[in-house]
């Protein structure tokens, strides 16, 4: 114990100034771009230009705010919030496009290592998700696909815990009705 204390003090004195230093954009992008792209692809059910647009928008929004984020760990929930907001805009735009232009085409779901049957099932799930409110869809994906805790879902969606629960439950109920026993 006597030998351990000085080591703790030394680590503390080095880490503290690093933690308060502004984030480097390159390292942030390198660390989280893939994660943002994966979350966006799962929420959108596609891996196309929309995913690139979401990643671009999220990091373009983050760029001027880097000075206010003091660690890469703290950046993750913040980036998730921006991702949710950006994906919501894309989903809403897509919904309007379906309504106005009748665009009902379903892109290939970018799942790897799945059978043809599972791929067809995945397409059915996303077709069903297209029918529900984008906010509920996002909350459901965050909870059951990304495995986020309810508090984290509420934070990312900028809503109360009760609202997050209600959205997740609504999406779940609809999916169960549509897909039945799966």
């Amino acid at each position: 114990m006597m030998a351990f204390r000085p080591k703790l003090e030394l680590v503390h004195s080095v880490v503290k100034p690093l933690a308060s230093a502004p984030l480097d954009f390159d390292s942030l992008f390198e660390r989280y771009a893939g994660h943002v792209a994966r979350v966006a692809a799962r929420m959108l059910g596609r891996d196309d230009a929309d995913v690139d647009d979401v990643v671009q928008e999220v990091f373009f929004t983050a760029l001027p705010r880097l000075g206010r984020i003091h660690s890469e760990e703290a950046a993750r929930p913040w980036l998730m919030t921006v991702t949710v907001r950006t994906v919501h805009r894309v989903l809403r735009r897509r919904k309007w496009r379906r309504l106005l232009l009748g665009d009902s085409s379903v892109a290939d779901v970018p799942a790897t290592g799945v059978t043809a049957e599972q791929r067809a099932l995945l397409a059915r799930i996303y077709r069903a998700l297209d029918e529900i409110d984008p906010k509920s869809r996002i909350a459901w994906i965050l909870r059951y696909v990304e495995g986020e805790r309810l508090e984290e879902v509420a934070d990312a969606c900028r809503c109360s815990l009760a609202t997050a629960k209600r959205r997740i439950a609504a999406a779940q109920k609809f999916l169960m009705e549509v897909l039945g026993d799966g």
Partner: protein
Amino acid sequence: MDEGPLFALPGRIQPQWTERRAAQVRAAIERRVRRRRAARWAMATSSLILAGYLGFVLLARPNPAELAIRKPASAEISRTPSTPAEPTATPLTADTELVVDPQGAGRAFVLRRGSARFVVTHDERRPFRVRVGPLVVEDLGTIFSVARLSEHELNVAVEEGHVAVLCEDSRAEIGRGQQRTFTCPAAEEHARDTPASAPAPTTPKVVDRQAAPAWRMLAERGRYREAYDSLRGASEPPVRDETHELLLAADTARLSGHSGEAVPYLRRVLVRHGNDPRAHLAAFTLGRVLLDELARPAEAAEAFERARAPRGPLAEDALAREIEAWARAGDAQRAHGMALEYQRSYPQGRRMRAVAKFGGL
């Protein structure tokens, strides 16, 4: 809920996020950053330019010294509800010659010709003055216009406040909505070439000649058609019994295409102001109107005879035109006799050819 295999499937989604794709997204972000930076620069630059322009417009004040060479803005007087801190002067006619009086410390002008409008804030310590020959118009807090009518005569129209018109010790004031013509007759007398033995002029006085009628202002600016319309539309007798005004009325009628209406004005000059030096000019003009435009040669001959003052500037021309008039009136004998007289008096006369033709020489 049950996290069965059905709802675990979306978790199998793995986008093909490659380095190349990440580089493309990064390049797009950098392009957007550059565009945003350029837009901010453009916005900042245009804001600075706009702020600079507004500052220049708001802070720039007219320099009185520049007013003398400023082009006239408009002949119309625009009403200004309040007077600015610095006096402003606007020439009202194209031929206006308005210069800064070097002794006036920026608050005095000399109106050499034409007319101008002045907007002045009264300052008792530094009165604003406009000098027109011997006359001086001094503000008492006002907006007013001054028109120079002759060497010793001006017309003042006051829009707001009061002005004082000064001529040496003499002074007259007029107020808002008034328009008056002033002269300085004693100064006029003094200005003429008088013999050294002539008695000293009396003290100059400001003489208020009442408001100048619109037709006269227009005629003096050469706008004869408008002057004629104004003259015809006047409710009261608009032409005063003065040589200058009668001649001006005759010119207005004649030059606006109403020659017949010029005759009474010219005859009136001859009858009422026969001793005026300008009576010969009136007679000659009457002869020309009657002969050339009204085809009344006999009356024209009489008018030309009247214009023939001995050794006068019009004597030779009047005699030649009289010969022509008598010849056109059918009195060849009289024309011939006068032609001989012309030949004797002006053997090298300019009108010899016409005289020979009409006089039968």
